[in-house]
């Protein structure tokens, strides 16, 4: 077993660190320093920024994002079935029916729990997904 050639890797690591440190260091040494009215502001392509970047987002958006990811992924499974409908035959048809039935059951449950309601809750009495720390 011959020893591996390690020096290119070490050289690479050293070069990466040198470039990163160098960029910061050189701009620190050579860069201009002035304090104008807007020098602390973030650069937004010339548009003056308004407000703080630390917005409190309603958690409802995350819920919708999660639903999107889940159902999007599941539609991807249906696409893969769709391109081989003929070869998969009736057995494949039954399998995709079971799959979609599970999805529908999950959707019905979410609907019933009020997870799809956007406004203030109308259903349920304080349980379920809807009121888990959702504040506007």
């Amino acid at each position, binding site marked *: *077993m*011959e*020893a*591996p050639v390690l020096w290119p890797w070490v050289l690479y690591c050293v070069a990466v660190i040198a470039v990163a440190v160098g960029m910061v260091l050189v701009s620190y040494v050579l860069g201009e320093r002035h304090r104008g009215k807007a020098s602390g502001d973030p650069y937004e392509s010339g548009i003056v920024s308004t407000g703080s970047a630390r917005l409190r987002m309603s958690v409802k958006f995350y819920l919708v994002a999660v639903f999107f990811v889940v159902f999007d992924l599941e539609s991807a499974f249906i696409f893969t079935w769709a391109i*081989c409908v003929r*070869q*998969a*035959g009736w*057995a*494949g048809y039954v399998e995709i029916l079971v799959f979609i039935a*599970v999805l529908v*059951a*999950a959707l*019905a*449950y979410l609907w*019933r729990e009020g997870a799809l309601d956007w406004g203030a809750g109308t259903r349920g*009495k*304080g*349980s*379920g997904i809807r009121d*888990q720390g959702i504040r506007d």
Partner: protein
Amino acid sequence: MNFSDLLHSAMHDLLAPGASLSAFRPELTLCATILVILLAKMALPRWTTSAFWLTLLGIAAALWFAYPWSWASDAIPPAHSIFTGVLVSDSFSVFLRLLLLLFAILFTTFTQVSGVASQDDMTEFYVLMLGALVGMCLMISANHILMVAMGVELASVPCYVLAGTQRQQPRSSEASLKYAVFGAGAAGIMLYGLSLLVGVLGTAHLPTMSTRLAMLIQSGGGLDRGLVLVLGGLMLMVGVGFKLSAFPFHFWAPDVFEGATAEVAAFLSIASKAAALGLLVRLALGFSFHPDPAMLAVLAPVRHYIVVLVGMLAVVTCTFGNLAAYGQNNMKRLLAYSTIAHAGYMMMPVAAAVALVGVDMGEARAAVASLCVYLAIYLFMNLAAFAIVAFLRNELGSEDLREYAGMVRRSPGLTVCMAVVMFSLLGLPPLSGFVAKWFIFLSLISAKLWIVLAIGALNTLLSLFYYLRVVKVMTLSAEPLHRPAPTIPLVSMAGSYCMVLTVPVVLLFFFAGGLLNWARAAASTLLY
């Protein structure tokens, strides 16, 4: 093979009589139960305990399907892979699955007796539990790296939510978040490690991976690939160590156990651990074994690596858990460290089994059997400990050990149960904990892992003090002046539940032979 043939063979593998689907019935039953209890909540809102009864029914049905009715005691069918090789169905997975389902039945009853899931949350609680259970079933029968990753995730993610079920309590949410963040980190590292292993070996199918590994070593492979494999193995161990709460990855355990309810802590400490050990056995034996004797001899350095890694982690985990348990006054934290220590004990036979592969296959199987015995006994004693903590919490509103003072006068029966469980966790005869440790130490002797054996024995001594302290506070300390100690008679739901769990802790000592036969059968189809 063209696409149509591929599809045909996959269909045949799935649907032919006695093929994949029939071996997968217990898991499918659990999945169906999840759907049924969700639908029952929508369709029958008046039936408030529907989730509990349907869960119990579903797990009982899964248990019925999981029980190997057709096996004769002397002729256990050999292992066969299902779903085109991603899962393996053998006696080991059947045994662990039975154990998990038995635990699930006891656990579901426990949650109902202690009343942890309120009527609003009950459905979600059981859905999450069943989801985690399916993941654990996948973990113990995984035969493919993708299934390892999926099983671990499916078992972990519901547990993060379960840890946060007490939404009103900030401590519970904190536990949930800590668990999720730590789990995400561990899963990320594990996936990276897995991708390194798969990348170097060019396959994700475990038996094929061991073949490629042997070929790589035979051809002199090159040190750089060896380094990547070692790194991949370490990273894989991070993920498994997280599930096991093994030493450097145990940080979540005390905090999560303290924040979550005692019921959820019991689930994490028993079911999650059993599944993680099953996975560890699959991976450790998978990489260290090859049916061809020539290849098997070539894999010796891999075995050496795994023995050192697992043995060292086991020893450190065990010692750390036992030492850290000393200063704990919160019972759930104490039991969390006790769980960590027991994870250490249970990793020892895995190291022994790997050390014995290639030396004496029969002894290697015996080492795995000793792990199965330990898991079965650990199920009863640890669940009993958490059950008593939960019932006392309902009475006292506290999980502080000092609050248990003087219990022996008011609830003598429950105190005796707790004492039995503590002595059994410690490993004193004539209780089943002794048998469990005995078999594990025997497997270490036959593997000649003397250092691990010595430290394991020393640890039993170390653990003496904190287990005894619990008993001492309950019996010798005086009752606090400001209120009487809680009264839980044995003839009540809670008391009789504790009895049901404590009696096996004693009886399994006397019927250890029967349990050992079961465990031997469980390990009998491994390593062929």
